[in-house]
């Protein structure tokens, strides 16, 4: 590999990404982890810009660093204290279940490395993915060409999705049956019904998106020019193209999904609402008009500027304990 500015900066960004990712995943304190996540996100944005997509990089910074990271920091603030620090990471080797985790991790890493280096898919993805979804007898030629093996991970993911859907259905049914058994728990019934409805809607939307997407993938003239060239990068990042594709027919299902996600956000707000919040009268002591006037009189700038304790307005008993500070503005009776 020749050392150009591009490749060297890619190496630097890659090192930064791996280091900050590892630190974010393994460092002890939660707040430090979130800070390293910020480094990671900014590095990802710079990688996007290096790859030739400044628009996505800017959106990454705006949404991720500006929005999501702030959310995380607020969550640390709400949850933290001593609790988050005492939740220790499980020791990597001692636990027996972690041995299985390490083994499966090695297996996943091996599969990924095989996909990256073992398969000759770079350059022939063109016809590997194009006709696969709509080809009528795709079963017949399946193990034939090597390019078809690329779809095995997609097949595995599909099977996993089906399993997840079945489990979700069982859970929803259990919830409904539980609600029927003790009818008074109408809240559980409502939750189960909402979950089932949401699952149904999501399944419909994802199905439509999959069908439309498969049509788009198989449409002729899929690629613009020679793959992996500078002109291709420029062609992909034309602003009209990105914005135009936002309102194209193929992404409308995703936009419907976005509306559903908005509903999810509202649900999140409902979830996070305070439980049994104390009444305002309990949280704040009732203040009489006399105390308000007193506080207005005492809140003199010169009193606070000298660091002198403000005169307590809570009770006359505490007032006597506080040494009274003579003030220039205090008018003698």
């Amino acid at each position, binding site marked *: 590999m020749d050392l150009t500015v*591009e490749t060297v900066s890619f190496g630097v960004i890659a090192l930064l*990404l*791996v280091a900050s*990712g590892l630190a974010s*995943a393994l460092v002890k304190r939660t707040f430090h*982890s*979130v800070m390293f996540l910020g480094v990671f*996100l900014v590095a*990802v944005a710079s*990688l996007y810009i290096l*790859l030739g*997509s400044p*628009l*996505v990089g800017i*959106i*990454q910074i705006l*949404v*991720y660093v500006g929005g*999501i990271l702030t*959310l*995380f920091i607020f*969550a640390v603030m*709400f*949850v933290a204290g001593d*609790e*988050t620090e005492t*939740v220790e*990471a*499980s020791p990597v080797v001692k636990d027996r279940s*972690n041995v299985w*985790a390490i083994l499966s*991790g090695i297996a996943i*890493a091996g599969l*990924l*490395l095989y996909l*990256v*280096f073992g398969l000759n898919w*770079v350059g022939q993805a063109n016809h590997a993915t194009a006709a696969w979804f709509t080809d009528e007898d795709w079963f017949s030629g399946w193990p034939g060409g090597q390019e078809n093996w690329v779809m095995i991970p997609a097949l595995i993911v599909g099977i996993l999705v089906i399993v997840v859907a079945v489990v979700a259905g069982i859970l929803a049914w259990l919830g409904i049956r539980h609600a029927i058994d003790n009818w008074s728990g109408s809240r559980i019934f409502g939750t189960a019904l909402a979950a089932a409805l949401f699952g149904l809607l999501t399944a419909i939307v994802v199905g439509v998106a999959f069908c439309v997407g498969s049509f788009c993938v198989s449409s002729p003239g*899929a*690629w*613009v020019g020679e793959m*992996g*060239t500078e*002109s*291709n*990068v420029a062609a*992909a990042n034309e602003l009209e*193209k*990105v914005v135009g594709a*936002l309102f194209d027919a193929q*992404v409308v299902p995703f936009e419907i999904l*976005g509306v559903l*996600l908005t509903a*999810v*956000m509202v649900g*999140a*707000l409902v*979830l*996070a609402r305070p*439980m049994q919040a104390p009444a305002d009268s309990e949280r704040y002591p009732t203040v009489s008009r006399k105390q308000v006037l007193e506080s207005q009189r005492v809140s003199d700038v010169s009193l606070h500027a000298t660091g002198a304790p403000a005169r307590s307005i809570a009770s006359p008993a505490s007032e006597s304990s506080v040494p009274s500070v003579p003030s220039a503005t205090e008018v003698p009776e």
Partner: protein
Amino acid sequence: MIPIQWSVLLACTLLCVGVLGLLVQRSALRVLVSVELILNAANINFVAFANYHGKADGLLYTLFVIALAAAEAAVGLAILIHFYRHGRSVDVNKSTLLRW
């Protein structure tokens, strides 16, 4: 041009780092952070292949994934805070209500 294999290898590495954090950590907040790592690893692939093929679709999907990550973080953190209010803990091993 950055070779496409470099980007894919980097994305694989970051995915493995995210999965490692997901498996090792017990605090729900740390698990969410690891999920963000994984999503970003997927996004790198999207952007790399969009520029490789000269089509804007991958960039578009990246934008959707970013929006989805925002929604996921909002919902996840709301659930987390609710969970913390219930049990004064964010240890995911303690949430055993749906276990049988």
